[in-house]
């Protein structure tokens, strides 16, 4: 990440940290003050979370001050720069990875583990290896390879964890 982008990211992270820290401290303050039960006020469950929330907010403020000094609140975010970011090959690959992994975890527990694992491995490989412009033969070979690897992965992981190591599977 370039220094300019980093300063920009720091500004928004700092805002999130300040809001997070203040909210955490307020919620901690609302936790029971155990004096009513005859306990020492210093053992209150909200004491440490309050201090941590306040510290996070304070560190966020330092980050905010520093990023304002660097950016002078000129972020230079426009449609063109955002479009450039989304068109980058790396962003596309990152997006596909996150999407496929998220879909897999959301499907866990709804279908048998070996089946969704097979579908996930297959989809992951095909999402990165399939090339529409490639000759038909190559595409078929890629699909066959993905299916074989997915079947093996699903069978080996299920077998090893469930029957050898006696571990529960989702």
């Amino acid at each position: 990440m370039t220094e300019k982008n980093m300063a920009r990211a720091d500004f928004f992270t700092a805002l999130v940290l300040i809001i997070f820290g203040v909210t955490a401290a307020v919620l901690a303050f609302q936790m029971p003050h155990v004096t009513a039960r005859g306990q020492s006020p210093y053992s209150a469950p909200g004491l440490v979370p309050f201090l941590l929330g306040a510290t996070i907010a304070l560190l966020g403020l330092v980050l905010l001050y520093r990023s304002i000094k660097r950016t002078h609140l000129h972020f230079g975010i426009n449609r063109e720069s955002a479009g450039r970011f989304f068109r980058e090959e790396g962003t596309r690959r990152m997006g596909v990875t996150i999407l496929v992994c998220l879909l897999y975890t959301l499907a866990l527990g709804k279908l048998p583990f070996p089946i969704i694992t097979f579908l996930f491995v297959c989809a992951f490989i095909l999402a990165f290896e399939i090339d529409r412009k490639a000759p038909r033969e190559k595409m078929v070979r890629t699909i066959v390879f993905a299916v074989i690897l997915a079947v093996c992965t699903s069978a080996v992981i299920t077998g090893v964890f469930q029957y050898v190591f006696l571990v529960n599977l989702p």
Partner: protein
Amino acid sequence: MFEGIELFGKAIIGFLNFRNIFDALWSTQLGIIIGMLPGLTATMGVALLTTLTFNMSANNAILILICMYVGAIYGGSRSAILLNIPGTPANAATTVDGFPLAKQGLAGRAIGIATTGSFLGSMIGMVAMALFTPLIGSVALKFQSFEFFWFAVFGIVICGNLTAPKDPLKGWIAGFIGLFVAMIGMEGIHAHVRYSFGNTDLSGGIALIPAMVGAFGLAEIITVMRFSTYEVVKAKIDRVIPRLTDITRYWKTIVRSGIVGTIIGAIPGVGEDIAAWVSYDMAKRSAKPEEKEKFGKGSIEGLLAAETGNNACVPGAIIPVLTLAIPGSAPAAVLLGAMLIHGVRPGPLIMVEFPTFIYEVVAMVLLSTVAMFVLGLSLVRSLVKVLTIPRQRLMPIIFVLCVVGSFAIQARLFDVGVMVFFGLLGFFLREMDYPMAPLVLGIILGDILDKNLRRSLVLSNGDLTPFFTRPICLAIFLVTVFIIVSRTRWFTALTGKFRRSPRPAA
């Protein structure tokens, strides 16, 4: 002293059976392969193996995890030498001289040097571990809540400082977020449930292993998948067995790097990557002028320093795990979690509750180091083929293992969600230069900080004086303040002014 040697001897004899040797060999080899593959770290390897060793006895499980740890930290040197990509963050310094050596056609020699350096580093660390763990353990017995509170603060501050050298503020923010994560769930004094918002899963707290698998596993998978391919250097792998002169010539560097690596390992949360860089930097500073010129262009001394330093850090990082229940590195944090799962309670009472365990761990480190040395010098050519596996075929398998690893410990889908959440959080934080080690250390130290601060305040009836008047507390407090102040702009300017001012004539 003699009792220690006797316990160590008994532990070694206890481990010398077919089952343990077989376990040590396969887990070290697996560790080397995991370490070799960019995107798979030692932390992830130890975390995933924790799931597999769930039903084993404590000694067998810890032996396998230590072998994985030692093997993975060493294994990363292969990809550092052949790909110019460190297999694990611990091998970043190895690329500086390892890759130029491979490009010069000396890949085999570089691998041999890295293997020997790693072996000697682990041995130095192991000796330090055997000598100092019981000593630190007996000192730690005298610690009270006040000292433990400062240790937790010190751990976060120094870990944030060293793992984010460019911007320690981000290291501290990551550490405090980790401490806050540990506040979620039922607290240990009044059993009050914090920040659960009525969710029963959250009231149990955030488990360490799913969070770590996410922060080091999924985050790494997304990072690796962003880039398409890497190329293996097509260098002929020549003689791997190192020359004796290469070792005897640089014995001072080996001893220095071993000691530095062990000390850095013992600092909470800092880890192998920093140990390797510091050892490398110290070797460069103290090298002879003709050798200094070779640094960065294929220096044997530089490669030895980096690899000795990172592997010496492994036993070093286990020292505070055993004596204070505070991990010296991220993989050591998982090791700590695994020990707790297997019913071993590390901490100041370990010498009382499990008196033989320290020496058993020393024996495990010895076994894993020997296995790493033997395996490291054999199967070199065939293992290089592992590096050619396309990442899009390997990463989905790794993600499935991350899911199974997170789920298996408590059989809850909630933990898979925790893994994904920390994976995404870890990825975005890393993109913005926030280190992961302080975050993980924070999750572990959160409970220690919380209980000990409140306990101390109750003991002193709210009086803050004991926090600053007890000798150990004062020392830790002053060091912590110095670390923070030393990273401020005015301190840097002040020291710069002193450095620039001319020395008075004698």
